[in-house]
C-alpha cells in the first residue's frame, strides 16, 4: 500500500512532471480547438521532441496534450460549428445553437466542467475497475464491434426531426466513401479508378472540416447581414447548482464513456454519440429541445468523451492493445523509452500504472484552469461580422485540411465535401451521419468480415446473436432503434400515454 501511494504521489512531488503536464494540457486545449490540428498529431510530434527526456516527464507532457485536445475540440464545435476533434462531433448539435443565441461563454463553461468531471470519473474507472473493464473489453468479439458501430450509426441517423431514411442515406454514403482506397485487410485498391492519390482513401478529418465548416459557411451567406449576436461571457463558470443538476447525467455518461473508451478502436466519438442519443431518449421535458441548445446535449457527450480517455488506457496497460490512435502513439513512445505496456506490466512495472493514473488526474485539474481561461478571446471571434468570418473560416478550413497530409488534393476533397454538405443541408439531409459513416466505416467492415470468418458465414453470425449475451443485447438495442422510428410504434406509444393519462 505504501508503495502504491508513493507511486501515486510521484507526479505531485516532481516539479518537472507538474510543469510538463500543465504545459501539455494547455497546448492540447488550443491544438484541439483548431480544426485540422489533432491530438494524435500533437502527441506524435512530442514523441520525437521528448526522445531524450526522462520517461515520466515525457509521459506527463503527452498525457496532458491528450486530455487537453479531447476537450479542446469542443471549442471550435461550439464557436464555429466545426468539431476540432472527432470526439466533439456531438457537441455541435447543441453547442453551436447556444453560441448563436449569444451563450457561447456558458456553453464553454459547461463543457469545461463536465469534461473535467467526466475525465476524473474515467480516471477512477481506470484506477479501480481496470481488471473488470479489461475482462469486458476482451469478451467483445468482432460481431459485437460490428453491432456497436452499426448501433452508433443508426442512432446518429435517427437523431433529430428528420425521417430515418433521410438520416441513414448520408450514413450509408459516408461508409461507401470510406471504402475508397486500399482495403485494410487485402490491400486491394477499391474505387480508385486508377488514381494513385485515392489509394490512401479519404481522411475523415478532411471530410469533417468540409461537411461542417465549409458547408456552414456557404449556408450562412444568406444571413450575413443579420446583426451580430453578442456573446454573453460575463458568467462563464457555471454555478455549483448547475453542475449538481446535471450530475446524474454526467456520471451515467462518464461511465458509459469509460467502457466505450476501453474498447479498442471505439474511441471518444462513439462514446459521445451514444451518450448524446441516450440523453435525448431519457431526458423528459428538457428546458430547450435537443438540437436547439439543450444543456443535456452538451453534458452527455463532453463528459463521455473525456471519460473515454481514461478508458482508452485500460486495454493499453493491461493487454498491450491501444484503446485509440493516441494511446497507440503513447505505446510507441513507451516502447522507445524501454517500457512494455501489456499483461505483465502490473507485475514488472507497477509504478507506471499508478503514475499514469496520477498524471491523468492532474491533467484534469489543469484542464479546469485552462479550460475556463481564454473564453472571452475565443468568444470575440464569433462576434466578427459574418461577411468577414465566412472567408476566415474557409481559409482556416483550407489550412486545417492541408495540415493533415500536406497534400493539395485534401483541400480539393475538403471543398468538395463542403459543397456536398451544403447541398445536403439545403434539401434536409443531415451531414453528421455521413461524417460518422466515414469514421466508423472501417471498423464496421473489418469486424463484419472477421465475424464472417469466426462464425463461418452469415448463419453462424446470426446464431451468435442468440448464443452470446453481449451480442444479443446490442442486437436488441439496434432493433429498438429502428422500430422506435416507425409510425406504428409512435402511434402505439401515443395511445398508451393517452390511456395512462385518462386513468
Amino acid at each position, binding site marked *: 500500500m505504501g508503495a502504491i501511494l508513493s507511486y501515486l504521489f510521484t507526479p505531485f512531488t516532481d516539479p518537472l512532471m507538474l510543469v510538463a503536464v500543465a504545459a501539455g494540457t494547455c497546448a492540447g486545449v488550443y491544438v484541439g480547438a483548431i480544426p485540422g490540428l489533432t491530438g494524435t498529431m500533437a502527441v506524435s510530434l512530442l514523441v520525437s521532441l521528448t526522445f531524450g527526456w526522462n520517461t515520466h516527464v515525457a509521459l506527463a507532457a503527452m498525457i496532458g496534450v491528450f486530455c487537453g485536445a479531447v476537450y479542446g475540440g469542443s471549442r471550435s464545435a461550439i464557436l464555429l460549428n466545426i468539431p476540432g476533434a472527432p470526439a466533439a462531433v456531438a457537441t455541435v448539435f447543441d453547442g453551436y445553437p447556444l453560441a448563436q443565441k449569444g451563450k457561447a461563454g456558458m456553453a464553454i463553461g459547461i463543457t469545461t466542467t463536465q469534461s473535467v468531471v467526466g475525465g476524473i470519473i474515467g480516471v477512477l474507472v481506470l484506477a479501480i475497475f481496470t481488471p473488470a473493464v479489461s475482462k469486458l473489453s476482451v469478451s467483445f468479439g468482432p460481431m459485437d464491434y460490428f453491432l456497436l458501430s452499426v448501433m452508433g450509426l443508426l442512432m446518429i441517423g435517427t437523431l433529430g426531426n428528420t425521417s430515418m431514411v433521410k438520416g441513414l442515406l448520408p450514413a*450509408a454514403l459516408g461508409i461507401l466513401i470510406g471504402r475508397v482506397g486500399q482495403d485494410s485487410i487485402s490491400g486491394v485498391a477499391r474505387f480508385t479508378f486508377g488514381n494513385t492519390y485515392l489509394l490512401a482513401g479519404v481522411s475523415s478529418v478532411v471530410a469533417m472540416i468540409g461537411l461542417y465548416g465549409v458547408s456552414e459557411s456557404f449556408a450562412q*451567406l*444568406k444571413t450575413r447581414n443579420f446583426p451580430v449576436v453578442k456573446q454573453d461571457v460575463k458568467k462563464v463558470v457555471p454555478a455549483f447548482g448547475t453542475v449538481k443538476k446535471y450530475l446524474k447525467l454526467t456520471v451515467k455518461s462518464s461511465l458509459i464513456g469509460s467502457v466505450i473508451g476501453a474498447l479498442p478502436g471505439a474511441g471518444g466519438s462513439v462514446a459521445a454519440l451514444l451518450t448524446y442519443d441516450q440523453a435525448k431518449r431519457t431526458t423528459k421535458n428538457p428546458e430547450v429541445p435537443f438540437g436547439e441548445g439543450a444543456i443535456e446535449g452538451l453534458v452527455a457527450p463532453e463528459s463521455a468523451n473525456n471519460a473515454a480517455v481514461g478508458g482508452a488506457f485500460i486495454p493499453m496497460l493491461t493487454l498491450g492493445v491501444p484503446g485509440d490512435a493516441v494511446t497507440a502513439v503513447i505505446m510507441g513512445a513507451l516502447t522507445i523509452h524501454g517500457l512494455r505496456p501489456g499483461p505483465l506490466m502490473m507485475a514488472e512495472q507497477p509504478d507506471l500504472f499508478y503514475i499514469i493514473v496520477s498524471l491523468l488526474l492532474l491533467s484534469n485539474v489543469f484542464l479546469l484552469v485552462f479550460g475556463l481561461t481564454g473564453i472571452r478571446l475565443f468568444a470575440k471571434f464569433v462576434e466578427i461580422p459574418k461577411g468577414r468570418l465566412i472567408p476566415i473560416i474557409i481559409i482556416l478550413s483550407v489550412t486545417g485540411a492541408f495540415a493533415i497530409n500536406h497534400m493539395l488534393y485534401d483541400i480539393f476533397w475538403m471543398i468538395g465535401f463542403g459543397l456536398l454538405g451544403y447541398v445536403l443541408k*439545403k434539401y434536409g439531409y443531415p451531414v453528421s451521419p455521413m461524417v460518422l459513416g466515414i469514421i466508423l466505416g472501417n471498423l464496421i467492415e473489418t469486424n463484419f468480415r472477421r465475424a464472417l470468418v469466426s462464425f463461418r458465414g452469415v448463419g453462424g453470425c446470426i446464431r451468435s446473436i442468440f448464443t452470446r449475451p453481449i451480442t444479443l443485447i446490442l442486437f436488441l438495442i439496434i432493433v429498438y432503434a429502428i422500430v422506435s422510428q416507425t409510425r406504428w410504434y409512435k402511434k402505439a406509444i401515443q395511445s398508451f400515454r393517452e390511456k395512462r393519462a385518462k386513468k
Partner: protein
Amino acid sequence: MAEKIGKDNIKEEKPGTPKESQAGEEQAKGPQTVAPGGKAMPFLFLGIGIFFFYQSLLLHQKDPTLDGYATFPLLITGIIILLALVDIWQNRKIPTENQGKSLGEKIKNGVRYLLPTDTLIMVVFVFVYLAALELGLGFVISSTAFLFISMCYLIPKKMVKNGIYTAVIMVAIYAIFKILFQVYLP
C-alpha cells in the same frame, strides 16, 4: 446554425422575401412541400448507388468469397439503392414548389434555390483560390487575395477594415501553423 439535423438552417433574409429555405426546412420534418430540386436528390443517391453497385460487382468477380473485399461494398451499395427507393416512394405524394412547371423552369428554379447570387460568387472565388494554389502562387499570396476580395465583396465600403482583418488573420495563421506547430502550409 448547428447541425439542426434535418432542418435547413438558413433563415429568410428579410420579411417579405420568398421563403426559399422553408421548403428545405419543411422537407426534413415530414414536410408540406419539397424545395425546388428536392425530388431529384433521392434519384441522385439512387444513381450513385447503382453505379457503385456495378463497380462492386466487378470487384466481386475477382474475389467472390463471402469475407472478401467486395462483399461489404456490395452490401452497402445495395442498402443505398434500397434507401433511395424508399425516399423516392415517401416523396412521391408531397407537392413541390415546381408543381406544374416545365422541365426548363424546374431546373432554373432548382439552380436558383441552390445557388443564389452570393453563394455562386463565393463558390467561384473558392475555385479561383484553389486554382491559384494549384498553379503554385503560394498560400500567402492566394489566401491573402481570397480573404481580401471576399471580404470586400461581402462587406463593401469598408476596405480599410477588411484589409486590417486580412493582415491580422494571415499573420495569426502563419504564426500558429508555420512557426508554433511547424506545420507546412500549402
